[in-house]
Each structure stands twice: as C-alpha cells, then as structure tokens.
C-alpha cells in the first residue's frame, strides 16, 4: 500500500468520510473534520510511519496533498538512512 493510500485510510477512519472523496486537493475543512480529528490524524500518521511531524511543518499543510507529500519525503529520507 502506498504512503498516500495509508494516509487516506487513516484520515478516512478518523474523519468518518469515504476514502473516495479524499483527493489531494481536499482540505480538512472539506471533510468536515474538527480540531480533534486533525490532531488525531497527525498523531496516527506519526505512529504509523514512526516519524515526528513538527508543529511548524503541520501548519503549512494546505490540503491532503501537502500532508501526503511531506510524509512521503520523510518516509523516503528514513529509508535512505
């Protein structure tokens, strides 16, 4: 399963939205996710990929695609190490 699919699974489960409606352009607001959902998604992704997402990076995510790209780059760096 790709990083994007894994993150889509997590976000879909936490925000209770169908995976099919989550595109790279989707925002948490589009998914009607509240603050707790956002935090839970970040924590779940951190645990799933064994990474830490610094607050200043998380604040830059404008949409689902930004979130995925960031985690992909972190996961790739982790594989290289």
């Amino acid at each position: 399963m790709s990083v994007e699919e894994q993150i889509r699974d997590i976000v879909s489960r936490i925000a209770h939205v169908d995976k099919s409606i989550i595109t790279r352009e989707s925002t948490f607001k589009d998914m009607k996710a509240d603050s707790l959902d956002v935090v839970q998604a970040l924590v779940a992704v951190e645990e799933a990929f064994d990474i830490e997402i610094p607050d200043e990076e998380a604040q830059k995510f404008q949409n689902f695609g930004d979130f995925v790209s960031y985690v992909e780059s972190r996961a790739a760096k982790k594989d290289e190490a």
Partner: protein
Amino acid sequence: MAQDRKVCVAVDAMGGDYAPEEIVKGAVLAGQKGDVEIVLVGQVDAMEEELARHDSSGLPIRLAEATEVIREGEPPASAVRRKPNSSIVVATKLVKSGEADAIISAGPSGAVAVSAVQHLGMIEGMERPAIGGGFGSFAPGILLMDLGANVDCKPYQLVAFAVAGSVYARKLLGVPNPTVGLLSTGAEEGKGNELVREGYHLLEDSGVNFIGNIEGSDILTGKANVIVLDGFVGNVLLKFYESIGDYALGWMRHKLKRYPLLGWIAKLVFDKTLPIAKLSYEGEEEGSGILWGVNGIVRVAHGACRASHIAHGIAGAKKAVVADIIGALKPELERFKKEGKL
C-alpha cells in the same frame, strides 16, 4: 502513579477567566489539606505574585514554568501546536512524563482536549474524548456523558460513553452494577431522533446494563446511574442546570421583598443551612469534569471557575488517580471492542 509519593496534580495556573488569582488560590486551598502534591504551571512571576498573597509556606506546591498562554477563541489544534510552551501543553506533558498523575485546567476546553489527545493519546476503543460528570450532592449516584466534548455524535459513540460511564459509576460513585439510560423524548423504544433510535439498538445489544430510554424528568430521580447523551444536549443541559440555583435564589429574593421578616429568615436559611445557589454544583464534581477516553487523567474546569472549584477539582483528580480509572477503563473498552460492540 509513583508508589512512593502522594498523588501529584498539575494545575494550569493561567487558564480561566479569573486566572491566575483564583487558580492559585484554589491550589493553596487544596494544598492546605496536605494529601496531594500540586504543580502550578504557568508564568512564574505571575504565580509567585499570587502565591505571596497567601500563607503557602510549607504547602506541597511547586511551580513549573510555561511562558505561553492559550486564550479563549484561539483555534485549538493550531494553538496547541503553535504554543508548545503554553501552560496547557506543559501541564499535559508533566502527566505524560509521569511527573504528575493528573491535570486540571480551566483554559479553553478544546485546547485541553487537543493537548490531551496529542500528548497522552486515546485509549483503544474510544475514538474521541467525552466529558463525564454528575449533578453533585443534589443528585448523587448519577452521571451524564457526554457533557460537551462531542457536539455531533455517532450512535456507536453512545456505547463507548456507556462503557466509560459504567466504569466511572463503579469506581468513583461506588455503584456495583450501574444502570445505563439513554436520554430521549420518551421512554418507548422508537422515541427520539435518529441518533437516539440507532443508539438504542446498539446499547441494547452491547452488554452494558441498559434499561432503555429515560426522559428529562427521570434524570434527577436516579432511575439510571449512567445517562448517555450527545455532547450538544449534554452541554445545554449542564449549563441550564447550573443556572437553576442562582436563578431560584434571585426569584425567591424578589418574591420575598414585600415580607422583610420572611426575607430575613429565608436569607438565613438559604445562605447558611441550605445554600440553594450552590445546590446544583457541589462537591468534587463542582466546576469541572473528567475528560474520558484519553490515556491520562484530565479534568476540564469551567472557564469561570473560582478557587473553590479548583480545590474541588484537584480533590476529584486525586480520587480518580487513586481509583485508577484509566486502568479500569482500558480492559473494559478492550473487551467491548473484541466483542465487536465498539
């Protein structure tokens, strides 16, 4: 909890409408009992200034510095992540690190919940935290969940509230086999909105001691020990209930204006013997409730709480630590999840 020391409660000194004055004063009141250690978390200068107003020498109170404050109205998720040195976050991390056993905060409840979820995590089986609390000495032995953490609930969340509420009733209210009622507009099975109707069937099959729907008029009678409801209704109900005492006192004063002697007697009775203004919020549940579902003991206090509320909240937090509510809740949620009920 460390076995070789007293229960330690981290108190967010900067959260609330009357912080830090009332919060520090509440910590001093709790500290005077001597059965709990307190870590006041906040801006040290402000906390020291407030402590200096009280005789706090020899009390089990220490300070932990947190330079930032999360204010009411800030978006909770970004505030928590943007302000890692806020009193809410620092206090939560004290629980995470084991330096404290519980936290109480009168800061923005959304930020307290977000910080708890982020730093303490959720207990498996409960997707979102819920606030549980009772109606004090006026209606002992009952508790309601959720009182405001989840404005929109899913039916299966009601089952999680029932499980957590049953643990609460057993461990903190001493009810061996608590009954669970679902708040609705009528006692019959088909009454209520979609959430309640679906929740009814899930609760019926869940294995909790479900007695069916209960109505608003049943709440205070103790018909059910645990009353399950969504956070929207819960919060409206709680605030309405808490307003009754003050309102009733005002109404009586107004009515007795024409009868000075009766008014004087009423003042004597209702100020001292039967403090009606406090009728609806007394005891350890006064002014704060436990945030259930997070992996640590977190008490969320009213923004407008005063020193006595904080002192009671600290006592309530200590009681929850001693009762090991987290240790009791985890296997229960695990069991219900294993059985496919959550």
